[in-house]
């Protein structure tokens, strides 16, 4: 699992590479805890190179969203594969996240 950060026009893009599962979720959580400290940030998390997200991964993304909201920022998820998208739909989380 690997995360790359990129800034463009005031928007932070995080590209996640690899599965977000029970072994990598704690690291993902820690990464975003340290990466997100400023107020009013606008971020995009690209899941283009993510094949599978398990429920700990989904829960971790919910935690990231909660953090962004307390910092009054904005968060979008992008480039979801069909399979990953369906995982969001099953758990009804597609209604919570801004998926583009």
């Amino acid at each position, binding site marked *: 699992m690997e995360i790359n950060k990129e800034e463009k026009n005031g928007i932070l893009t995080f590209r996640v590479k690899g599965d977000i599962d029970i072994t990598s979720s704690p690291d993902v*959580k820690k990464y975003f805890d340290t990466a997100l400290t400023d107020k009013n940030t606008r971020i995009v998390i690209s899941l283009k190179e993510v094949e599978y997200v398990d429920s*700990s991964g989904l829960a971790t993304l*919910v935690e990231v969203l909660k953090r962004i909201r307390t910092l009054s920022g904005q968060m979008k998820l992008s480039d979801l594969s069909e399979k990953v998208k369906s995982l969001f739909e*099953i758990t009804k989380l597609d209604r919570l996240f801004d998926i583009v």
Partner: protein
Amino acid sequence: MMDISTDDQTGKITKVIMKNDTVIEVKDLVKKFGDRTVLNGVNLEVKRGETFVIMGGSGCGKSTLLRHMIGNIKPNSGRVSLLGEDITDLYGSDLDTVRKKIGMSFQSSALFDSMTVFENVSLPLREHTKLESSVIDIMVKMKLELVGLRGFERLMPSELSGGMKKRVGLARAIAMDPEIIFYDEPTAGLDPIVASIIDKLIIDLSKKLSITSVVVTHDMKSVMAIADRVAMLYEGKVLQVGTVEEIKGSKSEMVQQFINGDYDGPIRFFQQKDDYLEKLMQ
């Protein structure tokens, strides 16, 4: 009833064809308890993504077979492989590595009665992962939502009905996102409506999360509703394996007797009919 099962059939068969690898393989399994032979050369294969039902009368060894598949009982001879790993001779932490990838729903629910619903469902996550408690919190809510019991986190198992306990047990079984779920008599002792709710849940979990399910049951209604393939077990042997349609059209009188629940047939429950009067007069 019929319509639903055929609908599910078509839906699920395509899924099975898509991923056709074997996740459980049971070979020539023999198990004896004392002098009694419970399993007498069982051979089975379960494919990824399918719902595989093991049915048979009480005491035919189906629960014993299930316990062999998860390594809780060791056979006298024969082999069991689970998710590509031969678990026949695995113990302790080696076996636990494989067990973390499976979930099991027990006949009696087997919830830990000193723990709340939340603690029950979160226990495997707290024990096996480094996830923060806030993430575990969200996961437990997601699991309980899947079984329709969100909001019951603070209750103790003694405050729940039988069907609710079963569903909490199910939520605990899926806590670690298992690849296979084993169900021991999931609908036994539940009223027909709750039983259908559990059946629906089994179908949902296997479809939505593409989990392989292995179900042990003698509830024919449930078999028709959930099964992709059925194995009929009798006296420690597999009589027949096939789709629901194949089993229904079986020429075996024993299978037919079981499906129809006939009193009279080749399966006899009163074996020593003839010497009854003699025994009385002794």
